[in-house]
């Protein structure tokens, strides 16, 4: 659902997944979590919040959520022991191959060689066309070689006719050349859609 480099320590990132709004965030110590982008208190999007150490604080009222997505602090009531029932909806999360992977009721996380994150691009394209061109492959990522450059592609569908493509490369790859190949791949897909 994102490149590992899209979510540096201390940052949040809003991600749309099949119309659902999610937030990925990375703690100061480097742990990534993926949650519903909605504070259970008043529905504020948590991607607008601030990472404070190992917690994510909501912008609206400063409620802080930690590991396991449970609320640790309600600033309006400093003496309150926060009930364990106050939790954000959390997704399973893993990092592999330069990407962040999220799932619900998903099996074991993908096992992938270490790769270098390149770039994420949004592509306006119908699902059938996208999958026919990229190819669904055997594993979680598809590898394609164009113009002598190998791209390793992960993706998720963000909306009805929009995909986010997350590209990683083998270490030592010429990144400028790889970016040009990635952009031409997008142009081809979008041109086919327009035709």
């Amino acid at each position, binding site marked *: 659902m994102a490149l590992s480099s899209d979510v540096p320590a201390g940052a949040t990132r809003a991600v749309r997944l099949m119309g659902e709004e999610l937030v990925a965030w990375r703690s100061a110590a480097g742990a990534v979590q993926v949650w519903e982008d909605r504070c259970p*208190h*008043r529905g*504020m999007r948590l991607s607008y919040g601030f990472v404070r150490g190992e917690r994510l604080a909501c*912008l*609206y009222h400063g409620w802080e959520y930690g590991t396991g997505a449970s609320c640790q602090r309600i600033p*309006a*009531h*400093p003496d309150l022991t926060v009930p364990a029932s106050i939790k954000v909806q959390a997704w399973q999360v893993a990092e592999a191959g330069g990407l962040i992977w999220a799932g619900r009721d998903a099996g074991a996380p993908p096992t992938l060689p270490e790769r270098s994150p390149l770039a994420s691009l949004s592509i306006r394209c119908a699902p059938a066309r996208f999958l026919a061109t990229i190819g669904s492959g055997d594993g979680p990522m598809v590898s394609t070689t164009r113009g002598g450059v190998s791209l390793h592609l992960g993706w998720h569908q963000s909306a009805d006719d929009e995909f986010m493509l997350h590209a990683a490369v083998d270490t030592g790859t010429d990144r400028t050349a790889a970016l040009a190949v990635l952009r031409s791949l997008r142009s081809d897909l979008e041109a086919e859609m327009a035709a």
Partner: protein
Amino acid sequence: MSLEPAVRDQWYTLGALADFPTGTARRRLLSTDIVITRIGELISVTAAGDALPVRTDYGHLWTTLGTPERALFDMPEVRESDRRHVHCGAVHVRASGLRLIENFLDLAHFPYVHTDILGSEERPEVARYEVEQRRDVDELWATKCEFFQPRAAAAAEGGQISRYMYRVVNPFNVMLYKTPPTAPNRWDVIALFVQPVEPDLSIAHPYMLVIDDTSTDAQLIGFQQMIFLQDKIVLENQRPRLLPLQPGRETPTRADLSSVLYRRWLKEKSLTWGTEERSDRAA
């Protein structure tokens, strides 16, 4: 679309009177097109050719699509001669008007949304306050609210414990009373008149009746607009945009007493316009 009585039979503002010069203007209220025609002091308001009731109180134009049980609410402070009457503009907000009212009633966000102005992250505690449904006038009141504010108003020179009262006069109109920095024995009045345009689109018309001899109008308006634009960021990013009334959808705490009472009051009125569809009730 048919409107339930709880929203149809209420008074709504269409904006400040000054925003309706001689001629014809078009507005939208409760998903209905409205035409306003002004000739001199004479103002008529119509929807689909039908004339609607008109009021011109508190510097604003008011109308209704139904037959309100009560006269337009009274704001006695408007008759106190030493108050400044300040219109703070019209702000479009992509959210339910009910969310706007609820945010206006909220103290706990001051340190986080209006940081170092209406609240400080060092002092975020919300002390217990009192809420009351006044059934004789069908209003909600929150009283004995206190909060530490680093810069409570345009004329503030330092931090103070501000005292607040809130008065909800109908589902889309609310006012707060707070201690002015320059006259601690009086109450400033800040009203928020909400024009519900669509269920998830509103226009906020903040209006102040304040005691302040020093600030210019531009300073007063600038302060209020700064505060309101900070609120707008939150209001447009709450999910869902419509107010959820279904138990368990959101999580109130003691600081949210006024929100709890407000939502209970809306349910008691069977109000659904601007609220999230419920899955726990038969349609």
